[in-house]
């Protein structure tokens, strides 16, 4: 029989039937249902298994605090483990599976653990599995890992998209229950800028679970009308299906809106979820309260639920977990559940009230001063055992047991900035403390105002107070005073569950106490109490109360653990948003990118840049062939390389030279206009930071280049020096990296090639434009350009820059004009080979630990002036005898390999860290020398040229005899660059 436990009424659309499957079996439900409500309506109570003992589990709650009814929702690459059936909206075709059981939910072999529970007490694993020593990792742990965990990931990439966005408001109201709705009405009617967010798909909060009247009409009428009015206000934004997950600094809240989780798949172009960062001036927390349970023996069977949850299922979803229900309560709220169920013709077996003065009912039996002491039913509740006021026992047959132990305000967000809640003796509950996140106010049940009228008015008043406006009138309603008498556990209980998911029982808390783990944090960590996916919402208070009893202190003296974000578990996907796959980081393209792509270039990631790595041509089967050709072609004729990615910083002002003198360790004050100079920049701690060139285009105008990797860092550093250390200097900086497309034109024919495009007015002959010259020129008939005669390759070379928008045209022009010289584009590999051949330091050498001295540039650090880093570079530890010095390395046997990352050892003797003499920073095959070469740092390297050593790289299984040589492999005298 389908939906045998479906009642009358409810907020479901009975005109539409939705088909869904759970563990392969098909059921019917209706729009408005959750998976849990639909399963209960179909008389399915068993929905999961617990973590440790694999005890049968049914829903405990009707909301996001659910610890038990968690399932694998959807299938294939959309499979979502640990999804709470109590919040999963039903849709047609929904597929769900139970998890953490084998072979089936009803028969779970791992339930054997329950039989051994006496051995598997809190912390048992710390005391055993130690013998023999090797067995922990080889035997015990693999078994434990396999058994652990709850649901499974599909192991496939999440196919859905996630978005992020920003929202701003004057007042953020969290929770659209009675307090939140009244607050929104108050603020909204006053024209204020409001966001009202609620995790539920239906606004109304607890009102959706109740049958009493507001303004003498069903509560739903008022809720519907209120939501309609709020929707009509342009200054109010309603955000249902939106969980505010965290309260962060300065009024920034994280919120996750579920756009498509109630659908089978997200609609075309829509994300699954959106992470909103809500920036608000004020926040009103109206998050309601969560009912708490009572600990008694075997209080964890499917069918045993929070009483208010049973009421919610009955009233909102017209579903009941069973046709015969017992209520166990210590307060009046439990009676309300009984009355509502009775009104829906559910058989109330009894209301068991711990209080001797419990209210009377003519509709069903109220057993006063009694307790539920045990239950029966293997896969679901069948009987409750009572202990009556006179001490006698009684057994009650029932399929569901609603437990009400009072209510805990949902104070979680109030603690996100490490404020602690305070104990309210009247309510026997923690309420928001004084130390709230700045700008936050709390109203309604979240603030301990448990009556409906109280919540309605407190919401209105809070909004009025925050915004200094008049509160809206609350609807009239009955206002039963809530009497909350603490009653946490049944005397003598032992296997009474506190944390139903993690299987933490009263017995575990007692053991924790016995072994000295008495602080709340120790209790939590030792027993795993509160570490379940409900984040302790249904378990912490019970454990705390029992520990308080055991240590003979009050609950507030024992303390409370702090609540941390997120409020409910949050998909990692939505926190990552769009920044995944190729969009993980922005991709910066060089001006010649599209041209290079047409040429079939292979690209490589260089930071966020994509650069051409080499340009294969027909017939080349491996990268080395391409790179070797590019190097030879450049050294023999002319090559072109896009070097736009190097950082470019424009430095202008009458104090520009003074400024550069400060940031570079070598001098720039006397650099002539029209000249370029190599510069080495130190950090203040005396270590080399970056190198580059600075060309003086005018008395008050320099162009500085940086390495690609450090462009941002150097600019930041220079701005620091300018603004913070030299505030009165007349100097301005701007990064022009993207403004200029820059190409290296290198090789003996580079001048000839450039002469074809540089306008004739400019003399770029060796006399007219010698090595290290620079200047503003025009090319191609009037296009402004900058020309630098600098060389990274060691060849006669220039770098030419044109405004970026001409970058593509320029590369095409250079290639066309260079045909007669067989001009060859080269990529970063050939660039790297040539700079190693030339012995130029690059990123691998400027690794943040090397000094000017190490780099062979110790004398560049000017003593004649102050510069950043010069003083601290003088420290003894950076100037010791035998300091590392940059050297060249070549294999003794030309066929041998040189490996960057290899370490240098003496030719004979031990190979270990104590005998380590240095390391190889860069290595490449040199087509010019026809063997591999390397650069490295060697202790006292400067005086060891010619020495034979061993290069060892055990991690790549390499030992090679090498010779220490000058780092300048090609043209050591530097004749070519001056040609």
């Amino acid at each position, binding site marked *: 029989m389908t939906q045998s436990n479906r009642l009358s009424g409810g907020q479901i659309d009975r005109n539409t039937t939705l088909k869904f499957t759970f563990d392969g079996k098909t059921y019917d439900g209706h729009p408005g249902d959750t998976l849990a409500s639909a399963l209960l309506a179909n008389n399915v109570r068993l929905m999961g298994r617990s973590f440790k003992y694999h005890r049968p589990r049914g829903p405990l709650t009707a909301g996001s605090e659910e610890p038990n009814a968690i399932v694998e929702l959807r299938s294939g690459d959309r499979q979502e483990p640990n999804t709470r059936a109590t919040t999963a909206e039903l849709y047609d075709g929904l597929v769900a599976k139970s998890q953490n059981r084998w072979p089936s939910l009803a028969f779970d072999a791992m339930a054997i653990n329950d039989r051994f529970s006496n051995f598997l007490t809190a912390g048992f694993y710390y005391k055993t599995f130690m013998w023999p020593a090797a067995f922990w990792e080889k035997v015990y742990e693999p078994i434990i890992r396999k058994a652990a965990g709850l649901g499974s990931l599909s192991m496939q990439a999440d196919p859905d998209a996630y978005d992020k966005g920003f929202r701003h408001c004057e007042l953020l109201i969290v929770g659209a229950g009675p307090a939140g709705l009244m607050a929104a009405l108050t603020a909204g009617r006053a024209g204020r800028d409001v966001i009202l967010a609620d995790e539920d798909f239906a606004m109304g909060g607890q009102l959706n679970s109740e049958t009493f009247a507001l303004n003498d009409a069903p509560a739903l009428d008022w809720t519907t009308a209120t939501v309609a009015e709020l929707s009509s206000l342009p200054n109010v934004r309603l955000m249902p299906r939106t969980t505010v997950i965290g309260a962060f*600094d300065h009024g920034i809240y994280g919120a996750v809106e579920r756009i498509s989780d109630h659908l089978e798949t997200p609609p075309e172009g829509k994300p699954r979820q959106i992470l909103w960062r809500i920036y608000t001036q004020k926040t009103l927390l109206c998050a309601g309260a969560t009912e708490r349970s009572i600990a008694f023996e075997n209080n964890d069977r499917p069918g045993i639920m929070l009483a208010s949850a049973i009421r919610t299922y009955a009233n909102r979803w017209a579903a009941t977990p069973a046709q015969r229900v017992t209520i166990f309560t210590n307060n009046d709220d439990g009676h309300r559940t009984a009355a509502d169920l009775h009104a829906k013709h559910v058989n109330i077996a009894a209301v068991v009230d711990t209080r001797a003065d419990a209210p009377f009912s003519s509709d069903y039996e109220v057993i006063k001063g009694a307790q539920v002491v045990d239950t029966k039913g293997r896969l679901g509740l069948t009987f409750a055992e009572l202990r009556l006021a006179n001490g006698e026992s009684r057994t009650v047959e029932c399929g569901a047991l609603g437990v009400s132990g009072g209510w805990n305000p949902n104070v979680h967000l109030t603690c996100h900035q490490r404020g602690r809640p305070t104990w309210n003796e009247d309510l026997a509950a923690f309420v928001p403390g004084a130390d709230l996140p700045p700008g936050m106010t709390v109203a309604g049940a979240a603030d301990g105002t448990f009556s409906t009228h109280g919540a309605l008015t407190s919401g209105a008043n809070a909004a009025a107070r925050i915004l200094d406006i008049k509160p809206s009138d609350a609807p009239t309603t009955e206002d039963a005073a809530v009497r909350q008498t603490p009653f946490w556990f049944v005397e003598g209980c032992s296997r009474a569950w506190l944390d139903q998911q993690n299987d933490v029982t009263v017995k575990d808390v007692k053991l924790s106490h016995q072994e000295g783990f008495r602080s709340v944090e120790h209790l939590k960590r030792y027993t795993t109490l509160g570490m379940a996916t409900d984040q302790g919402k249904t378990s912490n208070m019970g454990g705390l109360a029992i520990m308080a009893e055991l240590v003979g202190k009050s609950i507030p003296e024992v303390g409370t653990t702090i609540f941390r974000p997120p409020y409910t578990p949050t998909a990692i996907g939505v926190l990552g948003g769009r920044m995944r796959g190729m969009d993980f980081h922005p991709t910066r393209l060089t001006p010649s990118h599209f041209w290079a792509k047409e040429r079939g270039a292979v690209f490589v990631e260089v930071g966020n840049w994509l650069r051409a790595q080499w340009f294969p041509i027909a017939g080349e089967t491996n990268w080395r062939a391409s790179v070797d050709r590019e190097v030879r072609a450049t050294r023999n004729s002319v090559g072109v390389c896009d070097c736009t990615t190097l950082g470019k910083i424009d430095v202008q002002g009458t104090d520009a030279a003074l400024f550069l003198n400060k940031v570079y360790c070598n001098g720039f004050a006397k650099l002539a206009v029209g000249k370029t100079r190599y510069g080495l920049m130190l950090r203040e701690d005396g270590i080399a930071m970056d190198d580059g060139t600075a060309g003086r285009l005018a008395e008050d105008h320099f162009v500085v280049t940086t390495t690609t990797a450090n462009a941002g860092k150097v600019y930041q550093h220079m701005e620091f020096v300018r*603004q913070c*250390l030299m505030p009165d200097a007349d100097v301005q900086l701007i990064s022009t990296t993207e403004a200029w497309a820059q190409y290296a034109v290198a090789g003996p024919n580079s001048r000839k090639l450039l002469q074809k495009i540089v306008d004739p007015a400019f003399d770029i002959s060796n006399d007219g434009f010698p090595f290290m010259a620079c200047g503003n020129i025009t090319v191609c008939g009037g296009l402004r350009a900058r020309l630098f005669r600098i060389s990274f390759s060691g060849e006669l070379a220039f770098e030419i820059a044109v405004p970026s928008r001409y970058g593509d045209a320029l590369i095409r022009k250079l290639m066309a004009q260079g045909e007669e010289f067989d001009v060859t584009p080269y990529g970063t590999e050939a660039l790297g080979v040539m700079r190693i051949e030339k012995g130029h330091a690059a990123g691998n050498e400027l690794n943040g630990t090397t000094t000017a001295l190490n780099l062979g540039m110790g004398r560049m650090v000017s003593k004649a002036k102050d510069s950043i880093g010069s*003083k601290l570079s003088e420290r003894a530890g950076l100037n010791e005898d035998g300091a590392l010095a940059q050297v060249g390395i070549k294999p003794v046997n030309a066929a041998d390999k040189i490996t960057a990352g290899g370490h240098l050892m003496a030719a004979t003797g031990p190979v270990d860290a104590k005998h380590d003499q240095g390391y190889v920073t860069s290595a490449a095959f040199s087509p010019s020398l026809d063997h591999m070469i390397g650069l490295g740092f060697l202790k006292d390297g400067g005086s060891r040229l010619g020495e034979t050593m061993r290069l060892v790289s055990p991690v790549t299984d390499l030992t090679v005899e090498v010779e220490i040589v000058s780092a300048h492999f090609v043209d050591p005298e530097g004749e070519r660059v001056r040609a």
Partner: protein
Amino acid sequence: MIINHPLLGPRDSAEFIYMGDAGLINRPDPETASGEEWYAYAYLRDNPAGEHRELWWHEGGDRSWLVVTRNTVTHEISKVEIARDVARAQGRSK
């Protein structure tokens, strides 16, 4: 966090790069400072639990260096100044 930029108004801290204690403005006088002063400048920090004057760079904005007075326990920001003004007020020039 939100930093109330003196020129641009409230800006998200994600637009900024943090450097550290604003004492870094007080670079020792290269003419007179001892090695000990340089060491203290570069390496020693008050690291207070409470009010902290610190340098933030508006990388994603106007590239100003700011001196932000922020409580390291509560993260509350009580003052934001242009670092250049602070440096001048402390007697730095060129």
